[in-house]
């Protein structure tokens, strides 16, 4: 057996074999062994954060990771930036008939390794197989539950003039890596996806209490889309400083070549925080002490311009940071 067949989704012996020998043993042990249809859990707190996300990236593997890493990091990060400490994930697999088993194993190994690194448990799961042509190799879905971090009071309406905008590292690497992999660009110095967890960064920021106004992970649509959503309808806006925006050299080179604005491009392992000017240095310091935050930068400030996002350019001019139209990078996460 080297490929997934429809029999693997039929509910019979082949299905059981697939689940027992390829999937379940990689994940939970103890009472949750075998990934039950439903997991019974006891929450260590009263407030919960709950999130779900689906992953349809093409290609399934790209420099810096694969769809398995994304499926864990995507949901862990969604839970984290909502102010939760991620605890449990579910894992839904939709596999296409003919999918090479070796590829499935690499993806599942990535899910298991990423979950371990994030300190979350995969506690329940589901597997379906669809006929050839009905999905692009595989789709994944994860849902995640986390415990509310009590010190955080995230609310974008608390943005105040003078607040700082921080990002935890270079922007747009994931989107450029996937784009290059998808289009088959052969580059000596190709961008690598930044896929990774941000929950430790969130928890480090949480230590600064209510000086943290808001957090988001700049995924689809990049920092531009996230900021645009945040200031929507507010009496304040954000002004970014081009000179402080962190971009990696490979991502920048490809973006220049293709005429892409990296502010529009997804990251999958970064977090953006708006915080009071008093706590900003403390947050930056805490972030830079973590490997995933060593490239953190203060990139801009909240200004008294209603619902606007602008960029002070290095040349000394000023322009609007527009929202991407959405067709540039279809299906990058």
């Amino acid at each position, binding site marked *: 057996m080297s490929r997934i067949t429809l029999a693997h989704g039929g509910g019979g012996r082949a299905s059981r074999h697939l689940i027992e020998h390829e999937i379940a043993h990689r994940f939970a042990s103890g009472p949750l062994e075998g990934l039950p249809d439903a997991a019974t859990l006891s929450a260590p707190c009263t407030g919960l954060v709950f999130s779900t996300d689906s992953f349809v990236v093409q290609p399934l593997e790209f420099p810096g990771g694969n769809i398995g890493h994304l499926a864990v990091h995507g949901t862990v990060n969604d839970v984290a930036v909502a102010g939760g400490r991620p605890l449990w994930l579910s894992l839904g697999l939709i596999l296409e008939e003919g999918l090479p088993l070796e590829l499935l194993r690499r993806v599942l190994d990535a899910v298991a390794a990423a979950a371990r690194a994030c300190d979350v448990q995969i506690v329940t799961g589901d597997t379906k197989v669809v006929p050839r042509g009905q999905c692009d190799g595989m789709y994944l879905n994860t849902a995640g539950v986390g415990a509310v971090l009590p010190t955080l009071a995230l609310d974008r309406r608390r943005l105040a003039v003078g607040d700082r905008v921080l990002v935890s590292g270079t922007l747009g690497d994931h989107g450029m890596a996937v784009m290059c992999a998808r289009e088959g660009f052969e580059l000596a110095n190709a961008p690598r996806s930044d896929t990774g967890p941000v929950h430790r960064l969130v928890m480090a920021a949480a230590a600064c209490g209510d000086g943290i106004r808001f957090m988001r992970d700049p995924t689809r649509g990049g920092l531009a889309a996230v900021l645009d959503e945040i200031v929507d309808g507010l009496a304040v806006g954000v002004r970014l400083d081009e000179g402080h925006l962190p971009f990696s050299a490979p991502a920048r080179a490809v973006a220049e070549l293709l005429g892409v604005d990296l502010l529009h491009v997804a990251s999958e392992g970064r977090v953006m925080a708006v915080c009071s000017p008093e706590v900003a240095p403390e947050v930056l310091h805490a972030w830079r002490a973590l490997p995933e935050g060593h490239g953190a930068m203060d990139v801009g400030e909240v200004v008294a311009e209603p619902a606007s996002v602008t960029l002070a350019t290095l040349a000394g001019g000023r*322009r609007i940071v527009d929202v991407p139209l959405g067709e540039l990078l279809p299906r990058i996460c």
Partner: protein
Amino acid sequence: MRLIDGFRQPRAAAALTAELAELGTALGARQVKLMEVCGSHTMAIARHGLKDLLPPNVRLVSGPGCPVCVTDPGYVDAALAIAERGAAVATFGDMLRVPGSRGSLADARADGADVRVFYSPVQVLDWAAADRGRPWVVLAVGFETTAAPLAALALEIRRRGCDNVTLLTATKTVPPALDALVTDPALSIDGFLCPAHVSAIIGARAYLPYAEEHGRACVVAGFEPLDVLDGVRALLTQLLRGEPRVDNRYERVVRWDGNPAAQRAIARVFRTVDAPWRGLGVIPGSGLALADDLSDLDASLRFELPVTPGRVNPACRCGDVLKGVIDPEGCRLFGAPCTPDRPFGPCMVSSEGSCAAAWRYRRSTQ
């Protein structure tokens, strides 16, 4: 990418800006109109907020150098008709959302047409080789910069014998459009910021007639913010001295004679024809059609579908925008209802279009 960083040094920009202010003062009451011919310049100027840095008596207007913007809607109609006949249509991404007389390629794709986006035209050969049973049509839109790779594509189609790939050409050349602009008495353009990439092919020499016969300042400049500011400085200096000439400030890429190999490939594959430009009308000798011995690669012959002029929305003033007669903000439809999400004309679609640049980067910073 030291190159990029090197050319965006804020201190150098501040020094150039100060010099521009002095030149502006030296011009006194004179109002100067400069045209950036090329869409990539339009975008660079908007992206880096460079209009903020010009003296008040110096105006930069956009020119006809955005290939998508000057493509006649009839061309989009022909591409749609070809897609309806079951061909796979391959295009640069910018063409996707350009409205024809009845919808865009993106609309057709949503309705099930097979429309693919390429980054480099030669990608299409692999796609078509894996799909031999079907015709593949490449939308050949662009200026000299694109004509060179399209010429290579045509020769490669012939060499590999990919008889299921054809080209629908609306390829154009820049100098005939400049001829039309300098001879139009209604347009008083003092100087041209000449295109960067196009000039790499045709050479800085191509602009001599505009300086020597028509007395316009001509400066070839690159796309980095400092390149553009330096280009404007060079233009203003020429105007102050009253000595129009061709100044190549982009020597790291553009040679006086251009790229002879690319010129030869273009001359081998294409022949010049009269071509319709949106907003400018038919310009003699400005189009590139496939040479007679390559006419079997011509999609409009293969599909027996002549490209006829399409219907433009009469309220859209792209034509006036492309000639520098009005700024995008001068169009009644700008912003409401015309936006990049719901474009009425191609200038609002293309990432290099002046209306799109104005809408995306300028609308409320002024």
